[in-house]
């Protein structure tokens, strides 16, 4: 079991590697350690799936919330631009 202990990641380390994988990539050793951890740990699996989901949904934020400036503000902007000219 000594070898297992040596390569086994804590959940804190495993979630860090999940984020690292999503953003900068992993070394071969890290990838192997993470695969081993994910094969066993349901919490870290959920963390990975759920944070991937959040990332995909976050990309649609702007489509979801089209915003409109007030007429008053628009008129003020128009005036400012005209004054600048």
């Amino acid at each position, binding site marked *: 079991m000594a070898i297992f202990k040596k390569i086994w990641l804590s959940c804190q380390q495993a979630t860090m590697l999940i984020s690292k994988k999503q953003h900068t990539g992993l070394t071969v050793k890290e990838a192997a350690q993470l695969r081993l951890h994910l094969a066993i740990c349901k919490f870290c699996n959920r963390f990975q799936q759920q944070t991937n989901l959040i990332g995909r949904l976050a990309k649609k*934020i702007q489509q979801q919330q089209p915003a409109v400036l007030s007429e008053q503000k628009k008129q003020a902007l128009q005036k400012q631009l005209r004054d600048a000219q």
Partner: protein
Amino acid sequence: MQSTLNSHQLQPDKWVQLYADALFSYAIARVQDSAVAEDLVQDTFLSAWKSREQYNGTASEKTWLYTICKNKIIDHFRRQTASPMVLDDAELANYFDEGGHWKPSAAPRAWRIETESAIETKEFYQVLASCRKKLKSVQQMLFSMKYLEDAATDDICKYLNITPSNYWVLIHRVKLHLRKCLEKNWMGIN
């Protein structure tokens, strides 16, 4: 004869009518504050007007205005995060015990999700917005740059003056916080 057939021209008189709402939506999605977003749109139009002579017509007027607005947003975030960044390890203690195991209160629960498109509701995005507001300002900036701007890691590091390893440690904290906040506030109402 003017040789402007292939180049775009500026029409400042139409900017407000054509682009004010679009730029406002763009800004508010990123800064999450309508007063700040209004100021950013105003700054965008005024600096566009001031630098009109630098416009060379290769990009469309719309693209050009968006680029200016984007830079205004980055400047805004930069001002907010002027102090050097401290990675606070105490934050992690909310999630993991000393052995690095999930604390029972923080361990991810199963989310009941039938289809992904079923989640894309107004309620979900309202909860996401309120969760984003609870992040520290540097984290809010990272979130916007990464997920809304789809900025390259190198660019984000440059803007924030951090190393790539600092970058993913920070974005990791963002994920821990948002995931937990969504689970608590949104999964709860489903």
